[in-house]
């Protein structure tokens, strides 16, 4: 008998708990979504040309690259790391890819993309090595590599830009062409997200990334190699940055030494807005997408609203801080609930 009663009481408790938690955990995404919708309405009211099919398309296209980078950054953050070098990596791979295609026009765009990605991967491996093998703080390692990659970009470009006329049509059209009526950039982003979704939700390695971030010590006991995971994560980040580099150059039909300098901050911001925890262990693709969208939205809307460009940085900064603070407050709420539930 006793068992029975116990079981029941237990189940009741659990049912309550899960529903509460479900709400709390959904809270962030929903809140974000609500905010985005609100913003859309507001902007639409001010400028009717906002919610036109064309503008939405522009917006998503401009967000595509950001969201790709944010995906990689999410993985890094989940392992309690951070990567400040992606802006530089992006510039480096973009520059080299552009130079290559301008040198031999015949090159198939796919190869260009491949090249850029590989360069990015190499950069990522270097960082991954420093972080995982030497246990250098990710922030220090990536700050340093940011310098180095940026410097190398200037070095290889030798101060020159690669301009649109030097790029073959095929290359430039990577960003402009459409697949099934959808801009290629968007398609690429979607594909990457689908792969990522499968990877982090349906493969061991994917889950191990979360495990390492969530509790490194028990990860060891479970026989998960932290080195391997860190290596992997930074390599992926580098690869995505490299890919983005090519897309970026193709999108703007010009490669400069100072491409995307400081862009890493925007990417990290997108992740944090998406509720990825810097303490590691948690982060959802849905969140990251919304986070990127929100920033993309701001970039697109603020000009439409004639907001002074100088406010944009301050706005971004405050939004980030508010987001992370709300996030932690919510988490605390959960903990407190659990304590209250304890009978004394």
């Amino acid at each position, binding site marked *: 008998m006793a068992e029975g009663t116990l079981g029941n009481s237990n189940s009741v408790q659990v049912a309550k708990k899960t529903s509460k938690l479900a709400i709390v955990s959904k809270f962030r995404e929903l809140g974000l979504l609500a905010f985005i919708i609100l913003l859309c309405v507001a902007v639409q009211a001010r400028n009717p040309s906002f919610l036109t099919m064309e503008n939405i398309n522009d917006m998503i296209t401009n967000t595509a690259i950001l969201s790709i980078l944010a995906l990689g950054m999410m993985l890094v953050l989940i392992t309690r790391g951070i990567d400040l070098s992606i802006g530089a990596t992006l510039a480096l791979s973009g520059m080299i890819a552009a130079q290559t295609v301008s040198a031999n026009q015949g090159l198939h765009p796919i190869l260009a993309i491949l090249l850029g990605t590989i360069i990015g991967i190499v950069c990522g491996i270097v960082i991954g090595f420093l972080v995982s093998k030497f246990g250098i703080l990710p922030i220090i390692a990536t700050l340093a590599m940011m310098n180095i990659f940026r410097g190398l970009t200037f070095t290889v470009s030798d101060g020159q830009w690669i301009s649109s006329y030097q790029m073959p049509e095929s290359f430039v059209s990577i960003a402009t062409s459409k697949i099934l009526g959808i801009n290629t950039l968007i398609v690429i982003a979607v594909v990457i997200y689908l792969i990522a979704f499968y990877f982090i939700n349906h493969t*061991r390695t994917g*889950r191990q990334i979360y*495990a390492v971030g*969530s*509790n490194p*010590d*028990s990860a060891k006991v479970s026989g998960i190699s932290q080195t391997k995971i860190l290596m992997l994560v930074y390599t992926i980040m580098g690869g995505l940055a490299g890919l983005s580099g090519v897309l970026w150059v193709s999108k703007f039909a010009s490669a400069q030494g100072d491409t995307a300098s400081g862009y890493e901050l925007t990417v990290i911001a997108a992740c944090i807005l998406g509720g990825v925890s810097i303490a590691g262990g948690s982060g959802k693709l849905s969140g990251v997408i919304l986070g990127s969208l929100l920033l993309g939205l701001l970039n697109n809307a603020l000009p439409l609203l004639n907001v002074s460009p100088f406010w944009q940085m301050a706005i971004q900064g405050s939004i980030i801080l508010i987001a992370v603070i709300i996030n932690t407050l919510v988490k605390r709420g*959960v903990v*407190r609930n659990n304590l209250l539930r304890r009978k004394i």
Partner: protein
Amino acid sequence: MSEYVLELKGITKRFPGVTALDNVHFKLRPGEIHALMGENGAGKSTFIKVITGVHSPDEGEMVLYGQKVKFSNPKEAQTMGIAAIYQHVTNYPDLTVTENIFMGHEKVQKITGRLLWKQMHEEAREILQSLGSSLDPKTEMGSLSVAQQQIVEIAKAISTNAKIIIMDEPTAALTARESEELYKIAESLRDQGASIIFISHRFEDMYRLASQVTVLRDSKYIGSWGVNEISNDALIVAMVGREITQVFPKKESEIGEKLLEVEGLGKIGFFADISFTLHRGEILGLTGLVGAGRTEVCQSLFGIMPYDKGKIKVNGREVSIQNPKEAMKLGIGYLPEDRQLQGLVLQWGLGRNITLPTLKNFSKKGWLDERKEADLAKKLAEKVHVKANSIFDLVSSLSGGNQQKVAVAKLLTADLDIIILDEPTKGVDVGAKSAIYEIINDLASQGYGIIMISSEMPEVIGMSDRIAVMRSGRITKFLHKEEVTQEAILEASMSDFSSKDEGEESRKGIEVKQYG
């Protein structure tokens, strides 16, 4: 050999400075629940770490299912059907129950390596139900209560279909009702043919469950008996290793005026209605099971985790204590339970550690006077008989006992009235133990009021003038030196006020077992 599933012969494990296991033997029959008893620091935890392949022994051999084995890592042990539920639950708070259960041995599709969530969730649900819990496998681990996390840990052990399951102090943090649930689970596992090693220093666990008991003391093998072959007292002697009265020197200090009065102290989720008084020269033993809230109470007194209900009076004056500094100003000192994490700066010399709490005593306007500091450190280190050559010896190089002495010395620098000792002899070798007892008595006779948290009954009984017994966040009984008996303490610490009805039941259950 087939009589035993697991047999360990002459296992010895040394760590720098200390021998954790000294020629330990152990035999485990199929389908038995085998209690492994011993005081804190007797080597129980190290022992199971050897079995689970976390540590590899320096000497001795291990025979599993009749053949010799040698584990180089936990995974090997796991694959050989050994699973452990550790004292401090080690899990992934951000991941779901299912993932925690299957981490390390996930179900994947052969070719694609795709995780088979459906199956895993299903199996997880089944296992949990077989354990009488209807947890939703999709809930986040972090949101579960300790008891529920324990159950998940057990589910994990089952999912690896382990033949040998080790439970290290699983009841430590549980209420009577939860423990009862756990007992039932353990029994059903046994009935399904698993062998269980049940580590505990609580008699009730053993009486309730075990058929065989092996006792370790001071990292040595003492003996192994059938539970009903050995009397309670004999067992205590085996565990404590001495007639209790002998080790604890009579203290000659008369009890003085009130120092500390606590009225209805409470903190949500940790403890409630804590009221007691402490006098000069008095040693107040604060006992009860681990997780009963003893540490939390004392940390509130010391301002580590501020209380949210109740009054504290020091020397009759009502005070509020928001942080350790204030507590120390009021003359309250605290010796933390975990000296490595909370007590000492291991990377520092012992001298600096001793002086850390009272830097201003030998500094003018914040400027350190290092000579003065060194002298004081020397004096105090010698006073507590730290075995070292120089006050610059790194604390990390000292043995547990000596580390603890350094931690105690830290309290002596400050001018305190009230000293709170949290498990002062935890993980300390016998010699150092009696040394520490001496120190405690000296302090008492110097007129300090002392609160001593301890799970070791002989210690509590031997040292305290009065004993307060706590149970799941409340003080359930005060016992005076005269009326104290182990049974009385057990009784008080097992009675469960939290839920009257089942409390009664479980209490009866225990009593039956004890007199039986």
